[in-house]
């Protein structure tokens, strides 16, 4: 997300400056130390839970860390790049499965982010104008966002049950679209099931952000366009969408990162091991680490995942920012 560095005004004349000399000195030390003290708790916790583990994770990826070394992971033998070569040896089963999982995740992410964005933007644009029930609908649309992931996804898992689920009841019993009730949570259909749940859960966030973005578009633009005879579609194409560009830049990136890293949805929907067609990368690595107790390989895969995300994010930001600058000129 964009970090707006605030021009914090340094306080030139603090109240302590008029005090006697010795107090002034401690006052100055305190003034320099204070911001750091204020940040210290946050910094320490981020170090403990995110940054140090990340470094350790990178170290672990160069070790042969199986369950025998968990109590004393420092004693695990070094393996140089073995874990990496194992992960990217696409002819061997482990590498092949990882590559497959990567492609599944890419396809899933593109579709899910695209659909979330489309639904969110369409709904937000339709609701730009006030009408009766708009506030109520907005609250309804935020329900998937507010529901705890596991409660919502477990409900979907029920709906996708083969014998007693709603989906098969509607598709097979009521509409007669399928010859026999299909399996949704195993086999190829599981990809569709995962996508539906992911879109259901993810689109309200897009809706929320786009709605806020729409409020910042000056209404004079629409008035001027209407006077010039622009229709609704033209207003959408010439005013709404271009004005939303900076919002979309952030929104798509955030949706991408969330969806690509999503663990909760497949974990609750399928359990510890996802079907092959819906084997998202997070759950794949989880499985590789905790089910087979091979932390070294799991870490190598996680590092590869992080590198991939860094490259994509960097490229995305470079591309979209250049596009924005060019548009501004």
């Amino acid at each position, binding site marked *: *997300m964009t*970090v707006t560095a605030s021009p*914090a*005004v340094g*306080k030139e004349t*603090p109240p302590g400056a008029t005090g006697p000399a010795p107090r002034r000195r401690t006052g100055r030390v305190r003034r320099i130390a*204070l911001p750091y003290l*204020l*940040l210290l708790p*946050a*910094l320490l916790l981020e170090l*403990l*839970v995110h*940054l*140090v583990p*990340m470094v350790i*994770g990178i170290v*672990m990826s160069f070790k042969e860390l199986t369950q025998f070394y968990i109590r004393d*992971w420092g004693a695990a033998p070094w393996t140089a790049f073995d874990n990496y070569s194992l992960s990217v040896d696409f002819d061997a089963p482990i590498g092949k499965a990882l590559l497959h999982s990567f492609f599944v995740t890419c396809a899933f992410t593109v579709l899910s982010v695209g659909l979330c964005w489309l639904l969110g933007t369409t709904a937000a644009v*339709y609701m*730009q*104008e006030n009408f009766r029930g708009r506030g109520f609908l907005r609250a309804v*649309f*935020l*329900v*998937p966002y*507010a529901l*705890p*992931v*596991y*409660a*919502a996804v477990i*409900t979907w898992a*029920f709906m996708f049950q083969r*014998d*007693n689920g*709603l989906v098969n*009841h509607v598709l097979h019993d009521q509409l007669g679209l399928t010859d026999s009730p299909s399996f949704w949570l195993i086999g190829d259909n599981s990809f569709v099931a995962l996508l539906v749940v992911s879109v*259901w859960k993810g689109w309200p966030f897009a809706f*929320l*952000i786009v709605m*806020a973005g*729409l*409020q910042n578009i000056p*209404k004079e633009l629409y*008035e001027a366009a209407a006077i010039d*005879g622009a229709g*609704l579609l033209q207003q959408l194409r010439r005013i709404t969408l271009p004005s939303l560009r900076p*919002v979309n830049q952030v929104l798509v990136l*955030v949706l991408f990162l969330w969806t690509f*890293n999503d*663990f*909760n949805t497949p974990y609750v929907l399928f*359990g510890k091991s996802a079907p092959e067609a819906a084997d998202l990368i997070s759950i794949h690595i*989880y499985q590789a680490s905790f089910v087979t107790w091979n*932390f070294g390989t799991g*870490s190598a895969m*996680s590092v590869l*995942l*992080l590198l991939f995300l860094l490259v994509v994010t960097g490229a995305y930001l470079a591309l979209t920012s250049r596009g924005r600058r060019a548009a501004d000129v």
Partner: protein
Amino acid sequence: MSRTLTATRRSPMAAPRSFVWSRRIFLTLLTGFVLLPVYVMLSSSLKPLEDVSGKFRWWPSGLTIRPYIDIWSTVPLAKYFLNSLIVAGAATVCSVVIAIFAAYGVSRYRFRGKRLFTVTVLSTQMFPGILFLLPLFLIYVNIGNSTGIALFGSRLGLILTYLTFSLPFSIWMLIGYFESVPRDLDEAAMVDGCGPLGALFRVVVPAAVPGIVAVAVYAFMTAWGEVLFASVMTNDTTRTLAIGLQGYATQNDVYWNQVMAASLVVSVPVVAGFLLLQRYLVAGLTAGAVK
């Protein structure tokens, strides 16, 4: 905004009827999609077991509140509930307090490493959880072995972990709110004899209450809904709802009516809180992204 478009609609170039109709159809379908699981959850939770083990029924053959009684004995739901409440509550309080200090530091002082701090903290948001799950697991196990402070499997470990999840976003949101509080106010407070912390708690915090509420709701929702770390870092006594709820589904018989009743019960606190405080959260969530 809305007023303009209403005005345009009444003008000769009014929004065509087709627009109104397409809006009606689209929003109706979308509402159906959104509420379908909510309906299934609610109706199934009131059905007798036969209704949910056989073919799906849109309407229960008879209404019963038995599932709502049975959920507490099939799995120790009350214990999970309490665990979730303690973990999410403590994580929220700590996260909000820490975020208030950090955001005040960033918004009111100029110091070396400020940009580095904000960028680092925010970029931790982008790491895949799975990347630091394994190392964190090892760190907690090893801290436990060497110091005796049980972090792995304990509520404390989970609280520490969860509070850092909401911290980056909370700090970022609060910086925005604090910056909208005029600096003259805290300077006036300091002239009146408050220290910097006095100014923070007597002037800045009261002025930023909506932002703080938003941050608290966000932090609570994050902790209440987390699954990945809960699946690894809890044991039988510290299990939270995120994992405990799957207890109904791993039995030989899946009591779907109870699963739905339990899902509904665990959702009520967050959904109610969210809908009540929605206004604050929506404003807070979007303030940053739109900037």
